[in-house]
């Protein structure tokens, strides 16, 4: 208990004594983690988006514009009979126009010169959960495309796969960027702690003289690094939250991507905690590197 008190007191005394370098250490760590966190937040939301879309694969079938009612009924029967299709909705031309006007009230003037309703009728198909592979979807799309009453088939599988690929690249990018930023953070913290280390060299020599082990001498500095890293992480979290809310507010006002902004979400609590823990670990690692070089050759 007395030891713990000693370690904490030493660490906080050093932080207070070297206020300027402590503040610089915290701010630089915060900026590094904010940069990494921004990337992580983007990745997190992209990943969420893909997951959301992947669980809701839709195929839109546009019947020929001049299709007769009995042909439309026959197409409906074909769709109904296909085992790959879980459910479907028929959106009439009239409904499609109504939906557009509801979703984009400011853009209805676009329809002014087009005369009669330009929107086609469509079947929106939901795919059964047990048909997840690309081949199965492609077969279904092929079958529908070859139907003589069908004008066009559109489905979002292709761009989901592209998005998944982008996510994979982002994962690699996150690793590289994260690595570079972590290295920068470690270097900054290592330098901050090394400064404290040099100004307290005399004190360290005394501790060695009276039998202090490297671990005993290091612990206050590790705490110091952890505090700098943790506070940097906390500050970064604050920056990210503020920036996120601001971005969400701004994008919400834009009707074109207004729907997208409502899908955005901030880091869940465990991930937020991970950012602070990451800061603490970076701080400890920076301290360890700084001390290891210093202590290695000293008896």
């Amino acid at each position, binding site marked *: *208990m007395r030891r713990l008190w000693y370690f904490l007191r030493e660490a906080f005394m050093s932080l207070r004594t070297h206020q300027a370098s402590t503040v610089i250490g915290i701010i630089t760590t915060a900026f590094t983690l904010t940069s990494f966190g921004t990337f992580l937040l983007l990745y997190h939301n992209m990943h969420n988006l893909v997951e959301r879309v992947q669980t809701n694969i839709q195929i839109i079938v546009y019947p020929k514009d001049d299709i007769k009612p009995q042909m439309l009924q026959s197409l409906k029967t074909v769709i109904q009979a296909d085992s790959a299709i879980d459910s479907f909705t028929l959106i009439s031309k009239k409904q499609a126009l109504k939906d557009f006007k509801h979703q984009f009230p400011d853009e209805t003037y676009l329809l002014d010169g087009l005369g009669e309703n330009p929107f086609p009728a469509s079947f929106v198909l939901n795919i059964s959960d047990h048909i997840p592979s690309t081949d199965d979807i492609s077969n279904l799309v092929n079958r529908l495309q070859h139907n003589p009453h069908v004008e066009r088939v559109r489905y979002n599988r292709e761009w989901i796969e592209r998005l998944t690929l982008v996510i994979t690249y982002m994962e690699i990018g996150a690793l590289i960027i994260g690595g570079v930023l972590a290295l920068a953070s470690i270097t900054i913290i290592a330098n901050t702690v090394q400064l404290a280390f040099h100004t307290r060299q005399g004190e360290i020599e005394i501790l060695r003289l009276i*039998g202090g082990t*490297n671990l005993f001498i290091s612990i206050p500095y590790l705490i110091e690094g952890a505090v700098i890293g943790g506070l940097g992480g906390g500050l970064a979290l604050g920056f990210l939250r503020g920036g996120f809310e601001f971005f969400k507010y701004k994008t919400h006002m834009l009707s074109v991507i207004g729907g997208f902004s409502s899908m955005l979400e901030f880091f869940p609590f465990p991930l937020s905690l991970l950012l602070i823990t990451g800061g603490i670990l970076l701080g400890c690692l920076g301290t360890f590197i700084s001390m290891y070089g210093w202590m290695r050759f000293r008896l």
Partner: protein
Amino acid sequence: MIQLFHVTKYYEGCLALSDISLRIEKGECVLLTGPSGAGKTTLLKLIFGSEHPDDGQILVQNRNIARLRRADVPYHRRTMGFVLQDFKLLPHRTVFENVALPLIIRGLSSFEARRKVIEALRAVGMEHKQPALASVLSAGEQQRACIARAIVNSPIILLADEPTGNLDPQLTTEIAELFKAINARGTTVMMATHNRQVVEQLNGRVIRLDCGHLLSDQGAYA
């Protein structure tokens, strides 16, 4: 207690100690004398484990210091006390905190540590200075506090490197008396000193060194 067998030490090619063999028994008071550069400090550092010999063996309480692993050095140091000429106290800590440091390192309980610190401070006549910052103490008081820190762990060996080097004759007498009292309690004292007054006052075994060579060993066992 302490045995040196043909110990030789170089610093960047310069001879610091040459073929030194010694045997120091428990409870002895050994005074290392000789001019500056004679090798007195090097000899103490070798026993303390802050230097390694280039040749020969050093046994301290039957433990071979020359073969001591780096990680074991702090534990070896905890068995002895070291007093230096420049005191080496933490200036912004109180006397109590300075003296308590070796006990905190050993992980003693607060109660036990307090008892031992007070005991050590009483032994050097500094009990009343517990709350004073080390930086406001006089030279003599700083050296007393330093001695208290060295003996707070009840070491078997007390090493001292010119402990009176910065003190006036009056304080030198007082500090020498302290060492005499510590030695009288059974602690082996090994002190490097230039001071003839200290040598006469402690009246111990005198080992004379010059340019790394052992010139004389008055009262040697082997």
